[in-house]
């Protein structure tokens, strides 16, 4: 079994992205944040019928084009070149956020700096550092039908990111529904954390050590599917 210390960061990130991909059912309209969420398209079948919305004004984002087809007038919210999937549409930022704010995004997948044990999200700013960017994070937190957090379980220095109370500024009063880390999958129901899946290379002890929050273990605890 690999120990966490030996796992390279891209392996961990891909594991998280791969597991989140399984949460995205056919027909759902999904907004993917920057960082780990942006890896998810690599794990979606082209026939998955998951429709990717990009808040800069695109529904039906297709994969990264080959270099010779790059058009920088067609980018994702991460400012990367993308393509137009079948049935895609482009629109203004006002129309894009009308779609988001109006509750028309089924699932938002986003990274986080911290999650409280109630599911509160901190993902835009670090105290004491410059508050110079928020992007669309707060709009998505406020209005997506379902919020999935995709993040490493702890910081590089093994500091828990799932904690009793946020110490970083929160992104909104709406709480997350699912947390997917490299160690575990939690669901949040009625303000309480439930451990639903655990990675084969982790243990309940390790998860408890790296989680500074109350959680219950599901009666149907599964091994996290990351094949």
């Amino acid at each position, binding site marked *: 079994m690999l120990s966490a210390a030996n796992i390279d960061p891209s392996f961990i990130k891909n594991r998280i992205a791969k597991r989140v991909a399984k949460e995205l059912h056919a027909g759902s309209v999904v907004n993917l944040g920057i960082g780990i969420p942006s890896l998810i398209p690599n794990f979606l079948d082209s026939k998955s019928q998951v429709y990717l919305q990009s808040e800069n004004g695109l529904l039906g984002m297709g994969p990264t084009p080959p270099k010779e087809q790059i058009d*920088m007038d067609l980018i994702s919210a991460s400012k990367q070149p993308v393509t137009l999937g079948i049935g895609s549409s482009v629109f203004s930022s006002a129309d894009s*956020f009308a779609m988001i704010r109006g509750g028309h995004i089924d699932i938002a997948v986003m990274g986080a700096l911290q999650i409280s044990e109630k599911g509160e999200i901190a993902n835009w700013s670090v105290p004491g550092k410059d508050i110079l960017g928020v992007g669309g994070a707060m709009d998505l937190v*406020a209005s997506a039908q379902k919020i999935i957090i995709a993040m490493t379980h702890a910081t590089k220095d093994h500091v828990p990111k799932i904690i009793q109370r946020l110490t970083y500024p929160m992104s909104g009063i709406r709480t997350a529904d699912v947390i997917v880390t490299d160690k575990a999958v939690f669901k949040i129901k009625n303000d309480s954390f439930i451990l639903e899946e655990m990675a084969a290379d982790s243990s309940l002890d390790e998860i408890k050590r790296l989680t500074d929050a109350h959680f219950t273990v599901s009666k149907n605890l599964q091994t996290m599917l990351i094949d």
Partner: protein
Amino acid sequence: MKIGDCAKRISAQDAVNMIQNGDRLLVGGFGICGTPFTLIDVIAESDHARELTIISNNLGETGKGLGKLLISKHIKKAIGSYFTTNRDAVKAWNKGELEIELIPQGTLAEAIRAGGAGIAGFYTKTGVGTKLAEGKEEREFDGETYLFIRGIRAKIALIKADKADTMGNLVYAKTARNFNPMMATAADLVIAEVDDIVEAGMLDPEQIVTPHVYVDYIVQNDRYEKMGGEYVERGKH
């Protein structure tokens, strides 16, 4: 109307001459996608239009688009949603040389739309309970808390479209649309930089995104051309 007879067409220099010290400008674009590159370059070279307040989602990228106006020290204040990735913005802010007002991206887009649509203000759930709600009026509707946001307008809007017709109708290229259509509605003076000008009647009435009523002047983007999918300065490749 022949293209040469387009009454709204002016040079980038004439357009920039209308900007005055201390003006408040809406500038289109998301990063450098959908950015009026030529107009920005001419501002960077000018000396009569400093101390600007720029309302734009970002300040371009480091050294590109609006990023050039940071280097040339034309910007006093930036109002937008994301400045972290432009390291010159972060530096200028740390040195106290740049004021920043941060607004969630969707609130920014809607506030500009409101400014152009005669809506004094509106209520949104975005930002409730966060630091960006500080000082903002809260109000409850149907058991949920909303923030009150005022509409945003500016004296001048500099936008970027793909094509204009000679009357000033505009169409955009894919995601280069972004903030440009709302900005076209929300300023006293609207200057559209475009890659191409076609004769009136050449654009499908159902496809026009910005009707000509919103556009005061058209400037041809003559300093940049698209090469390999990117805008590059003419003669510099």
